[in-house]
């Protein structure tokens, strides 16, 4: 079976290879025999309806939940390692719902994330000038968009082999969604990204490849545009019509309509 990775980057080996990944949360299977690869460049989108195991897949890759199977980062097996060691190998993780430390200041949140000997503080300051101005503020008092910036900045401070970014636009105002997308596009020029995203407009704008999950399994892989232009596939796997999808409707939640363009 030819994957998105093989088609879009026939030359370079994939940066991340997942094969036969299974994961459980409190005894319940949430990821079932998932296999895919992420090419060494560009953004690959991980799509699927709510609750199909996208976040669980990301968490299983870095060992935040119990998992079994093969996970390979730049050719090295990592599925048995502790989370902090996987991250130290060069994985940047931007979790769903930001997960900033609300009782630490912005500056402390960033300092905590510094792994490299020479963290790229300057880059982060240029990307998020707003954060510099608020460095003494408790992260819990920031707006959702600002918290997302902190969360992204924590990942971008270090040199990574890959970024795992989980629903970065969830619940954000349209203008902020645009800014987040721009930041990701900028980051993707130097580091490959595996992106979970409900907003298909953002997917269309950023992603080169897609991996689609349903019921904890991979049901489709391929080029992003091929998938997004195929109304039948979108209807089947995401449960929305391609008409709304092409207008940037989110895949599932009506509540998020306001967030889409």
């Amino acid at each position, binding site marked *: 079976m030819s994957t998105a990775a093989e088609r879009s980057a026939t030359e370079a080996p994939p940066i991340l290879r997942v094969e036969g990944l299974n994961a459980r*949360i*409190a*005894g319940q299977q*949430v990821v079932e025999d998932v296999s895919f690869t992420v090419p060494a460049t560009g953004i690959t989108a991980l799509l699927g309806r709510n*609750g199909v*195991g*996208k976040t669980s897949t990301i968490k299983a890759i870095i060992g935040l*939940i119990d998992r079994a199977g093969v996970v390979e980062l730049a050719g090295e097996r990592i599925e048995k390692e502790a989370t902090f060691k996987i991250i130290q190998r060069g994985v940047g993780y931007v979790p*769903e719902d930001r997960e900033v430390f609300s009782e630490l200041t912005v500056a402390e949140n960033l300092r905590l994330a510094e792994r490299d000997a020479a963290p790229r503080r300057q880059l982060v300051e240029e990307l998020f000038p707003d954060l510099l101005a608020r460095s003494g503020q408790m992260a819990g008092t920031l707006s959702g968009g600002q918290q997302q910036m902190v969360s992204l900045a924590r990942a971008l401070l270090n040199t990574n082999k890959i970024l795992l970014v989980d629903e970065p636009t969830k619940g954000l105002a349209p203008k902020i969604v645009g800014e987040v997308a721009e930041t990701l596009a900028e980051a993707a020029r130097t580091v490959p990204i595996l992106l979970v995203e409900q907003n298909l407009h953002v997917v269309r704008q950023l992603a080169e490849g897609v991996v689609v999950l349903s019921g904890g399994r991979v049901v489709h892989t391929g080029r992003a545009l091929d998938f997004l232009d195929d109304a039948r596939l979108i209807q089947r796997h995401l449960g929305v019509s391609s008409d709304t999808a092409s207008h940037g409707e989110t895949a599932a939640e009506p509540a998020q309509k306001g967030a889409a363009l």
Partner: protein
Amino acid sequence: MSTETDTSSTGGSAQPAADGGAARRSRKADVVGGPGAGPGGARPGAGARRLVAWASGAAGVLLLVLLPLLNISLPGVLPGPSYTPGSLQLLAMSMLMAAAALTYHLLLGVAGLLSFGHALYFGAGVYGLAIILQNFDIPLLPAMGLTLLVVIVLAHVVGSISLRVSGIPFAMVTLAFAQAGSVIVGRNPDGRTGGDEGMTLRTDNLPDFLVGVVNTRNLYWLALAVLVAVFVIVTWVQSSRAGHTAAAVRENELRVRVLGLQPYLVKLLIFVLSAILVSVIGMVFLLLQSGAVPRAISSDLTIMLLVMVVLGGVGSRWGAVVGGVFYTILDQRLTTLANSEAVKSLPDILRVPLSEPLFILGTLFILVVLFLPGGLAGTAERLAQRRRGTSAGSGGTETPQDILEDAA
């Protein structure tokens, strides 16, 4: 091979609510009150095995009933032949402790409540009855009824406050309440509890057949009856609607709430029920010991019950019974050992640890938690399964670790 039985219960709505978020387990068929959801499940062969278990249980009870009439010696376990008061006293004590451990099993193994205040109700039974018999001229049964009334009120008050929190905070809060009880007894208000000395049972209004060393075997039979009754009641509660709901609450409180049931009330019900049972055990304990001692209401007693349940195997009724008997007898034998000449002549480095039963029991407890999850019952089960050649069915049944996780 056992099979996963989730998704069968909620009619296809078993999709996790949010990706990786609130999705909680459904290890066994956690239908509330549904058929076949009882402990043990409905695996082939389980019915026959259960029959064997009940039959051997009945035979064991029969043997225990006859024991005071027989002359059986178990050197190293019993201090003398089985008909002697010393042996009967020890056996009666271990049966009462086994019964008390069963009531703790109801809290921890069934409802997932890690209480550190269970001694409060045991102690309320002991001291309540002792004080009432001391101060009022009423016969035993009304006195017991009166004590029970006090316990019911007490358990409702403490339970309804403590259950506002769960997990570790619940443990701390129940401990604090029990400590208050312990402190009151220690303070000896108006000279009613005897303080550190404890109090001697006033026997004026007791029936003659329960008084004196010559009647130890009557007390033995009483203790046996209490153990059997508590076992039957706990079994019945576990298989009742309330028991199923409590187990479901333990596994997944949110889902039970969605089903429109009241987790709080179910937990309170189990809490009060186990308090009532343990207070009755406490009353019989008073008769057996013919006195009340502060230890009966101290947190040490709760910890002892917890140790028994964990030693025997969390989540197992037989485990609680075995743990209770094993602990009581071991404690007694270790105390004898500690005072023996053989230990006294040892060098300090061996003498000091060996002369402290609690050191040995505490260490044993740590080792069981670390290396024998499932305690005695779990280990026996694993061995039996290995002999039968079946694999340890982790898919269908709950492991003690699961239950402990639920209590967190």
